[in-house]
């Protein structure tokens, strides 16, 4: 079952199209890696899911709820971290989470739980503006994880973290569906990053979805198209490069069912590698 689904979702600014006719399917209980180079439209898509930016056309449903009719209900189910950690610098880490806790009507213990999850407990009394970049990133993640939302939208959550921090957050994200019974949509411009976390990937370039499916399906498709498959990074680059060389193919109406993305899957076809979802 797809917990998040978009139908021809489009966002344009004057003559620039940031997201074009996007048809995304995020299965429930999966970690969905949203991949694409900088400026591909990943953040814009995520912002649309959160109501931070309005779609120019198209629609989306999240857990069966439609935007904008059910905006508040949708946001109640989503924990998010978009672009950069957002917080109040004049408040401590704990006070920042306390504000979110009050809005969500969660028990007091949820603040310490979220701080513990991201390893910020020893620094909870420190002002957020005095946090290091990595600590700010963790605070942003704690703000997304507080109350264990059924859906998590994380935009490049490992930015600014040291290798140990990256590993910790990656492990945490990987464990979330099982631990908290939630669905994670995580974006990155690094395939190696996504490869270690995601069950499904969606590859976006210039606002178009080039591929959607499992990593195995991605490899199969790459083989059939003659792209290198030894290294996933190279495969990704070849895919982006091929798309960049054929801009005319980006028109949504020209995409056929044989294109990378357009194969419509039936509900239930998305199955996690572990069998869950």
């Amino acid at each position, binding site marked *: 079952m797809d917990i998040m689904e978009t139908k021809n979702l489009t966002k344009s600014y004057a003559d620039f199209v940031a997201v074009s006719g996007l048809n995304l399917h995020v299965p429930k209980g999966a970690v969905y890696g949203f991949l694409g180079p900088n400026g591909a439209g990943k953040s814009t898509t995520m912002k649309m899911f959160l109501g931070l930016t309005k779609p120019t056309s198209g629609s989306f449903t999240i857990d069966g709820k439609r935007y904008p009719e059910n905006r508040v209900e949708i946001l109640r189910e989503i924990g998010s971290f978009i672009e950069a950690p957002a*917080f109040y610098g004049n408040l401590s880490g704990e006070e920042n989470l306390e504000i979110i806790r009050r809005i969500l009507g969660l028990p007091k213990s949820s603040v310490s739980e979220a701080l513990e999850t991201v390893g910020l407990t020893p620094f909870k009394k420190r002002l957020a503006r005095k946090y290091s970049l990595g600590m700010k990133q963790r605070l942003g993640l704690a703000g997304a994880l507080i109350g264990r939302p059924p859906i998590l939208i994380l935009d490049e959550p490992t930015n600014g973290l040291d290798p140990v921090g990256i590993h910790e957050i990656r492990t945490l994200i990987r464990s979330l569906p099982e631990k908290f019974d939630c669905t994670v949509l995580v974006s990155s411009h690094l395939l190696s990053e996504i490869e270690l976390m995601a069950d499904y990937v969606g590859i976006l370039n210039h606002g178009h979805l080039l591929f959607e499916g499992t990593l195995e399906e991605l490899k199969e498709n790459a083989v059939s198209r003659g792209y290198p498959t030894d290294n996933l990074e190279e495969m990704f680059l070849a895919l982006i490069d091929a798309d960049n060389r054929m801009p005319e193919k980006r028109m949504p109406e020209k995409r056929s069912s044989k294109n990378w993305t357009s194969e419509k899957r039936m509900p239930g076809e998305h199955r996690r590698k572990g069998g869950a979802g």
Partner: protein
Amino acid sequence: MMRTFSGRRSVLPKCNGVLSGCNGILLEGRKIKRTGFFPAFFGGGILAAAVPIVNMAVRSEMYLGLQGTAIQILMDANWQMMAMLNVLLVVSGACLLYHVEHADGGLQKMRSLPIREGSVFFGKVAVMMLMCVLVLAMEAASVSFCSWHWFKGQAGGGQWRGEGGNMFAIELCKSFGYAFLLILPCVVLSFLIAEACKNMWVSLGIGVVCVFTATMLPTSSFVLSLFPFAMPFQVFAGMEAAWVTRFACAAVVEIVVLGGVERLVVRGKGAFE
């Protein structure tokens, strides 16, 4: 091991995801911590309240022989300066409140949480209204003190008890209640400017320019006096009832219109971001 399920976000909205008015104000109050907002208003209130006292202390002979009630004389003599300080406090307070939202992306986080769009804005307006009440109360206390200290024995002054005292209290409440109503359009417009400008110095600059523009507008023109930053300079004491009503109605209309503009801004925001 899985933790208890009690702390999980409710999939079914508890209160329709909308903060109640009181909670919204408390939440906005929490965000102000360590910004210097409360000390600024407290200090500003003391400064504005000191204006009539200092003025009377250094040149009381100029005012004691004048005709009219004590409140009327005191307000005519000091209100322009007091109102200027009030408006500057409102402008700088609005900039400060939105600076904490813009500086580290707090506002974006709020917009991604299940609260009604615009609740942050109206919560801040409510906090500012409370601070205006505090400042005006300090100013009213100062005017009362001046009246008692310097206008003993004159009409409408220096009486705390009996009918004279009641009359004075009513007149004082009317004057400062009116001042409160007329400062509200300025409060809402200041917040609209502060919300629109991510850089605090830009909104502060616009606000200061508006304040000085307001002081230069001729008070004889009713239309020009309706500029939201000029409204707080109106004095209730001694004003004809018809004009009082006109200004009061204009203030209410401005508040409603500016509130509507905020709604439009909130709705249009996502389309351009």
